[in-house]
């Protein structure tokens, strides 16, 4: 315990170790084995902690307009129904187009696995951990939604936990379609750039499309439903921010889901 001359060599060793870790992770684009080890180690810990901290959570959720754990089971059920509803919101004509486009045979391809958020990332990143993992059939690049709308996508899955990148994360981009006009575009998370305001930035690919506040945005869908299944409601346009003369139209979108009070979510897994 003597903090004497050995301090500096140990410091240098630790710094080199940290830089080596950063380098390895940078090379693997943030998916080095260290994260897998961490997920295996800390996943159960977080699950336990979340169970212990559930009174506080319900307190938070009560504070943010949600209610207690009795609703949770109902909400789970509700989420599944809402997800199926979101699937069926796509009209038959659109469904035919999409299935033609995306080689989707039918919407019953998917099922929804209910999960609970057990941990959240730091101040800069909008990520959460959910309490289901590969043992429940979760793999990466799967859509996560809740009763309100799109939540995000699974970026990493361990045995009993998975990491979800929220749609508000600055690194998340989702292909979307305007409900009604069928114009396509993309929403990008704003992260913490707007402070505590959780909004998305919409960019329409068409320069001539009409963009008005109040329009609803739904997901466009990806090939094989990964990372986004089609037809999940994302949010409503609140403010058109495009500059005159700009090539693309941009707007701010208020998401349907409440990202600060996430409780029960559903993961859309393919059957």
């Amino acid at each position, binding site marked *: *315990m003597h903090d004497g001359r050995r301090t500096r060599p140990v410091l240098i060793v630790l710094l080199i170790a940290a830089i080596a870790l950063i380098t390895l992770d940078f090379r693997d684009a943030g998916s080095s084995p260290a994260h897998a080890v961490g997920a295996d180690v800390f996943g159960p810990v977080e699950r336990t902690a979340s169970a212990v901290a559930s009174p506080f959570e319900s307190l938070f959720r009560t504070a943010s307009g949600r209610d207690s754990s009795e609703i949770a089971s109902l909400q789970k059920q509700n989420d599944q129904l809402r997800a199926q509803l979101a699937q069926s919101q796509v009209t038959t004509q659109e469904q035919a187009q999409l299935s033609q486009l995306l080689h989707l045979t039918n919407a019953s391809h998917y099922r929804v696995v209910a999960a609970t958020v057990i941990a959240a*990332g730091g101040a800069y990143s909008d990520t959460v951990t959910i309490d289901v993992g590969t043992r429940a059939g979760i793999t990466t690049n799967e859509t996560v939604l809740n009763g309100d709308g799109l939540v995000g996508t699974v970026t990493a899955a361990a045995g009993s936990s998975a990491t979800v990148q929220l749609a508000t994360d600055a690194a998340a981009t989702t292909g979307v379609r305007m409900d009604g006009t069928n114009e396509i575009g993309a929403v990008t998370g704003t992260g913490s750039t707007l402070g505590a305001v959780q909004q998305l930035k919409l960019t329409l690919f068409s320069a001539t499309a009409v963009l008005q506040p109040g329009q609803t945005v739904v997901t466009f869908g990806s090939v094989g439903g990964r990372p986004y299944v089609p037809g999940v409601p994302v949010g409503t346009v609140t403010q058109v921010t495009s500059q005159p003369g700009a090539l693309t139209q941009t707007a701010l979108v208020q998401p349907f889901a409440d990202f600060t009070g996430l409780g029960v979510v559903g993961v859309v897994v393919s059957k």
Partner: protein
Amino acid sequence: MTALRRIAQALAIPVVLLLAVTLQLALVNRAPLPGGAAPDLVLLAVAAIAVCTGPMTGMLAGFCGGLALDIAPPAAHLAGEYALVFCLVGYACGRARNAITYATGEQTMITSLTVMALGVAAGEAGKAALGMMLSNPDVTSPAVKHVLPVAIVYDLLLCPFAYWLVSLVLRRPAPERAPRPEFAQVATAFRAASAGALGAVPALRLAGSTPPPARPPARHEPKLRLSAGRPSSLSGTSAAFSPAKPPHVSGRAVKLNFAEHKAGTAVPQPRQRTSPGKGWLRARPAAGAPVLKHRPPPKGWLRAGRPAGTAPLRRRSPGKGWLRGARPAATPAMRSGSPPKGWLHAGRPGRPGRPAGTPALSRKSPARGWLRPAKPVPPARRKTPGRGWLRPARPAKLSWYAKSPGSQWVRRSHSPWSSRRRRLLALVGVRR
């Protein structure tokens, strides 16, 4: 008992870190706090541990805590980022705490909290800076602009709480300011004693001279006692003085004994010095006259404002082992070293847990050898003090009470040759 307690303390640090990581991920990050940011409990815990222990423990705790935050599931940044930043924060906090304690001789809660606050703020900034450097898409300059001030404010608000909690867990008493000894008066008394004006000094009981029955002091903590020439006359000296009584004068000369508590330890011979110390008389411009005054010190001048036992317990020596009692070679330095702060305060007699004389031997104490009465100031010179005869040869070596200490003083407060000799010995491979 001490070993068990140490083990418990060493186990407490990982527990604190794990608790901080878990709370951070499962609770704090999920709480919809106003401002869009959250405090970093792990950073706070690391800074508090570093401040409470030292740089080595601090940086190890920082590395482990940061790594845990890096690889625990919802982390979106690269593994190793927080480990790097927190490791540096822990090291810097521990070093700064040690340096301040080294310079001022005491560890106050204010300095600890200041160091901790600075470290935490630097840690938050370092997290943001490293994320931007590694082009993390989440950490952009507008995001940092929004998050960083709020996060720092939250951290600063939680700083005292984290410090209190960690110091509670690590069983380190919250450090209080040890009363500064009135060296001018003490010096008067001892000078009078050495000059033979009073003939003797009051028989003082030094704090900590009675070994507590419950817990023996650590091996390398030298015990300081003032006795009447007999190293083993503990009972006589301890019973002689009570703080309520005015110091009475006995006919004995004073000797200072620095001895290990082990009976078998040989007491090295005191180093003979030709002068009483580095300019220790400089504090009094009219050096000759007031020494011979028979005015006794005011009543109660030796009474401690606070019990000396509340001085911070330092487990390690303040600097590069200059006072470590376990090494025999360091003993001459220890002998000529000045007494620890608070040595003159009568320790509370009924306090069993801690020897009261174990606070840090600080640099704020007077220059070495000022207490030794073996060679008093030559009377011939004292009769005719020429102009500037007391001025030390080098102005950089002034004592602390002669001049307000500058940074130069801190560096030069003991002989440069000791470190040179140590470096030379290390160079040729001689281990002490």
